[in-house]
């Protein structure tokens, strides 16, 4: 790779007014010319990505044509409802509440999840909380091996590596959440002749941090090309509430608070963004390491991890494979 003498974190500085207008124009044109739908449904969690997506949609087509779907469940963070209501009210979009706890219970998610955790941590029981985590950046990461962390009501934490059966059981069960939410987004979209806006940022989209046919499904993804750092810049430009902007990124998936750097990415998003940018633009590890507070060896490990994740999550992006081409239908 080549050194870039002028590389700095400023490479991610966005011309916010221009970018916002470009995205809004694309939203309008997509709805009118490609999707032929009258408005947009956005699943809102109070997080930065869904908030910026909803804001761009509301500014693009008017708040009366955007529905913000709030879909909390038993393990949602305590501030999810307050913050998702805050952004909906701030944007003056319609908000619709669909608590998915009963649906998750009906498909057996909570029972299946608890059984999988108990198979590894027998002490896990009522009142316990849990999350899955990755090894830290300094640990050998040839293989991405998840561990389960369970916390007792007394605050005792137990951490154990997930074996094949428990890992697959936990992932399969947890994926219910994203798929049920998407099902509800499309219900409201169909009912209103609207389309569904997905909310991934570039890091999530690039690295496969989504559930196939869950949060990975959408008709349009307005911020998928933006690094998370840039999403925050747009949030400020769009004047979103400070409480939304200052909320730490979370997966909001497990009962124990879990940062995205514990679950999927090895380091905080600011460093990951620069690493992804550096990878995409051929920045050498020595140059990048000076700007992200990591050693060259750690940066090299992250570069390799980026490639590995792209490879292993390729199938999440793939449309259905046709055994034989159907030339009359191709997009």
């Amino acid at each position: 790779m080549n050194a870039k003498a002028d590389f700095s974190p400023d490479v991610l500085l966005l011309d916010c007014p221009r970018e916002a207008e470009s995205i809004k124009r694309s939203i309008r044109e997509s709805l009118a010319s490609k999707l032929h739908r009258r408005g947009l449904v956005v699943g809102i969690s109070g997080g930065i990505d869904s908030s910026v997506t909803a804001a761009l949609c509301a500014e693009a087509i008017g708040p009366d044509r955007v529905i913000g779907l709030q879909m909390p469940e038993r393990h949602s963070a305590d501030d999810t409802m307050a913050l998702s209501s805050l952004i909906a009210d701030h944007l003056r979009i319609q908000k619709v509440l669909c608590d998915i706890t009963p649906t998750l219970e009906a498909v057996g998610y909570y029972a299946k999840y608890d059984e999988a955790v108990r198979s590894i941590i027998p002490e896990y029981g009522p009142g316990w909380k849990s999350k899955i985590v990755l090894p830290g950046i300094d640990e050998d990461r040839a293989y991405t091996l998840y561990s389960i962390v369970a916390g007792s009501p007394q605050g005792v934490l137990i951490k154990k590596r997930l074996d094949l059966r428990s890992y697959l059981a936990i992932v399969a069960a947890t994926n219910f959440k994203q798929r049920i939410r998407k099902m509800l987004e499309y219900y409201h979209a169909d009912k209103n002749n609207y389309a569904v806006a997905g909310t991934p940022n570039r890091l999530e989209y690039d690295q496969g941090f989504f559930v196939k046919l869950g949060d990975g499904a959408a008709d349009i993804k307005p911020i998928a090309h933006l690094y998370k750092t840039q999403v925050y810049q747009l949030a400020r430009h769009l004047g979103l509430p400070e409480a939304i902007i200052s909320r730490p990124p979370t997966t909001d998936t497990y009962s124990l608070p879990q940062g995205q750097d514990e679950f999927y990415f090895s380091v905080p998003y600011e460093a990951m963004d620069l690493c992804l940018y550096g990878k995409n633009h051929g920045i050498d590890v020595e140059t990048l390491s000076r700007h992200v507070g990591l050693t060259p060896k750690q940066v090299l490990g992250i570069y390799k991890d980026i490639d590995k994740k792209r490879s292993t999550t390729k199938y999440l992006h793939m449309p259905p494979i046709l055994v034989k081409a159907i030339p009359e239908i191709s997009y």
Partner: protein
Amino acid sequence: MTNFEAEIHRFIADKFLFGDDKKLADNDSLLEAGIVDSTGILEIVAHLEERYGMKVDNDEMVPENLDTIANIGAFVKRKIS
């Protein structure tokens, strides 16, 4: 090829390649060949533990032990000897 390597070769060819082992060489990196990912490693470990009655510790789940059929064969031989 040892007996362990032959069995592991058959397992990987069957489990991951649906019997098509034309591109499966015993000293090729399974990771780099795109045959096995991190979930696949868990499948290999589960197979070794069940087939050979061995326990694979966390710190043994490294490429030196698991990334080629030859490495896996040598690892199994060490563990059960």
